[in-house]
């Protein structure tokens, strides 16, 4: 039992913390939010710096393929720090979903061809679940794919897509004839969605589709949960700071018990979310029997915590908290996006119920 960061992990956390604090500033994030087309929702300079300077690029990609070869705990640390600043980066799409799918489900050739570019940040990938318009799923047939994928995170900036179809998982290049990418105006502009339409577009099947989807979901859930943890902590930290400087009735508002108790409740939840996220990360790294239970628990709990804390942040800032100018809405919108994406908290709790055998017959 040694449930605390190792020295190396603590150093990674510190480095990432400093990197995001210095670079993922609100003005830069807002520039990325306002951009359209190929730059929508991405701070490209920040992404390049993250992938090339920080030395943590391709966190889960093996070193032989240009990555950092680290585990889920380190991945959670990075996602948490990015989440703390609602950084406008395709971390989830490219390294949290697409890369793990290729790593787990691609052939040796596919991995060594595709992963180095993702690790170095030269290329960005995203992950899409496709369906035939309205009805049953899109199917792969002799190297082509037809159908539609809605709500593809950072889809407008991705260079390639890992696409889940009914009968396989395939890689689709952005420039492939027959692929139409439509950027969507998204509530969370730091992680905007795009719609993909495939019309007999060339698609290269991954060797092991089941392994690819499993890896993408598990890693994606964990990355979202960690992002939510970092975001919730930021909501608390910023509100605590405000509570000490804003004066009403001749006192700092943080001296009113009705106010401070709500901050205390945020901390109680956040510390539980932290236990959940790192438990899940460790359980996956150790191949524990509890890993699936833990990752569903973490996604459900951390997303609920973030939604609660981001809402409280607005309320406890009063009018200023409702403005576009204040950052509170960035957290509020990211919290909503985290909750919606890849299964809402209730759905994840249903998975926990299933894993715990709760409604097995008596």
């Amino acid at each position, binding site marked *: *039992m040694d449930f605390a960061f*190792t020295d190396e992990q603590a150093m990674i956390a510190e480095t990432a913390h400093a990197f995001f604090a210095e670079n993922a500033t609100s003005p830069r994030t807002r520039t990325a939010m306002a951009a359209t087309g190929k730059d929508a929702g991405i701070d490209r300079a920040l992404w390049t710096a993250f992938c090339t300077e920080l030395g943590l690029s391709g966190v889960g990609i093996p070193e032989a393929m240009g990555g950092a070869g680290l585990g889920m705990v380190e991945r959670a640390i990075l996602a948490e720090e990015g989440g703390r600043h609602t950084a406008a980066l395709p971390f989830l799409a490219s390294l949290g979903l697409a890369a793990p799918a290729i790593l787990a489900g691609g052939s040796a050739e596919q991995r060594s061809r595709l992963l180095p570019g993702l690790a170095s940040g030269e290329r960005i990938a995203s992950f899409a679940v496709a369906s035939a318009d309205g009805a049953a799923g899109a199917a792969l047939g002799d190297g082509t794919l037809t159908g539609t994928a809605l709500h593809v995170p950072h889809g407008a900036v991705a260079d390639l897509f890992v696409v889940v179809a009914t009968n396989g998982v395939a890689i689709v290049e952005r420039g492939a004839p027959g692929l139409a990418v439509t950027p969507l105006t998204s509530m969370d502009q730091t992680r905007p969605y795009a719609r993909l339409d495939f019309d007999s577009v060339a698609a290269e099947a991954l060797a092991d589709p089941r392994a690819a989807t499993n890896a993408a979901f598990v890693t994606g859930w964990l990355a979202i949960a960690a992002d939510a943890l970092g975001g919730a902590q930021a909501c608390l930290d910023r509100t*605590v700071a405000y509570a000490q400087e804003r004066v009403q009735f001749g006192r700092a508002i943080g*001296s009113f018990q009705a106010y401070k108790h709500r*901050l*205390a409740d945020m901390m109680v939840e956040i510390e539980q979310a932290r236990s959940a996220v790192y438990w899940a*990360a460790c359980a996956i790294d150790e191949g524990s029997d509890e890993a699936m239970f833990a990752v569903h628990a973490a996604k459900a*709990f951390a997303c609920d915590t973030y939604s609660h804390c981001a809402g409280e942040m607005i309320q406890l800032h009063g009018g200023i908290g409702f403005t576009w100018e204040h950052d509170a809405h960035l957290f509020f919108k990211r919290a909503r996006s985290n909750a919606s994406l890849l299964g809402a908290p209730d759905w994840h709790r249903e998975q926990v119920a299933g894993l715990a055998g*709760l409604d097995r*017959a008596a």
Partner: protein
Amino acid sequence: MRLGFSPEEEAFRAQAAAWLAAELDGPFADVRHITSLTASPRRRRDWEKRLGEAGWSCVGWPRAYGGRDATLAEQVIFAEEYARAGAPPRLNHIGIELAGPTILAFGTEEQKARFLPAIARGEKIWCQGYSEPGAGSDLANIRTRAWRDGDDWVIEGQKIWTSLAQFSDWIFVIARTGEGSNGPKGLSFLLIPVDQRGVTVRPIHQITGEAEFNETFFDGARTDAANILGAPGDGWKVAMGLLGFERGVSTLAQQMNFRNELDAVIAAARANGEAKNPLIRQRLAKAEIGLKIMRYGALRMLTDAESGRLNPAALTYKIQWASWRRDLGELAMDVLGVAGETVAGHDYAFPMLPNLFLYSRADTIYGGTNEIQRNIIAERALGLPREPRGDLK
């Protein structure tokens, strides 16, 4: 960061589990699965002695005082196995988890040698005399007085809500020894024998129908001058150190019983089909998640404690488990429905789950109410301004 236990630790687990199973299948089968805090006190005293004899009573204490020098990991493991085996609540939990660690931290060598082995051997049961009718959350406001008379302290005053005083041999109190002092100044921490003419214990019935706690009156009660922990006037410091134990490590053992309670709720939900109700299932899943989170939260804090770091996250732990258990009590009743509201026979004594519903309303009160815990978190962990006080300069 590592979750699992080492092979040596797992061997320790097997050893503990085997011992517990042998005793609770054998000579102590009658105390297995007791969950009430007041049931069968005489047999549970025997059980305390048996644990002591075999060295399983206070596993984390130094060997010199009757412990086993167990590491924190081993303490966690023992607590888990103890709960898993369905062993009864420790009659002396206040002695083991509060009095003992406080004496260990603040006592003289003589005091340690005198009091600790007696606790570890299960010979002396302890209770805690902090609260008074006028001093609950505002604990420093106590009125009970003590003064020196020759080789004795003489104590005068009243305590309230004293859990298990009716079974106890010793009580620790904070008393005002600095004449004219107020607030946290001028308090002393005294150890007092219960069985004497100057001490009267009167049980108070609780919402469960049981009487776990009591009024305790001191009317010229006496204790040896040596039975003071720390110097006269250090009482607040010692008392607060003790609350650290109460709110920290000691709750871990108790948390392991929560597993049994949740399992009982799930079993009830399966038996009457409520587990198929999606709303109930969501709440059961929430409870499962919350329990696991508390476990890993506790391990996180203990790992920090072991390496000497003080993690402010530890301050959130009391609210976590108290609120979790309160919610579980409500869920239990929602699962049972009206069937949970009646009990066979004429005794007002409900079985485990309805009793949990009632009892858990105390969890958010004793050991510092949820409101007081929120003040502590806001002020000590988040650094917000202190509560204004009406009565102190």
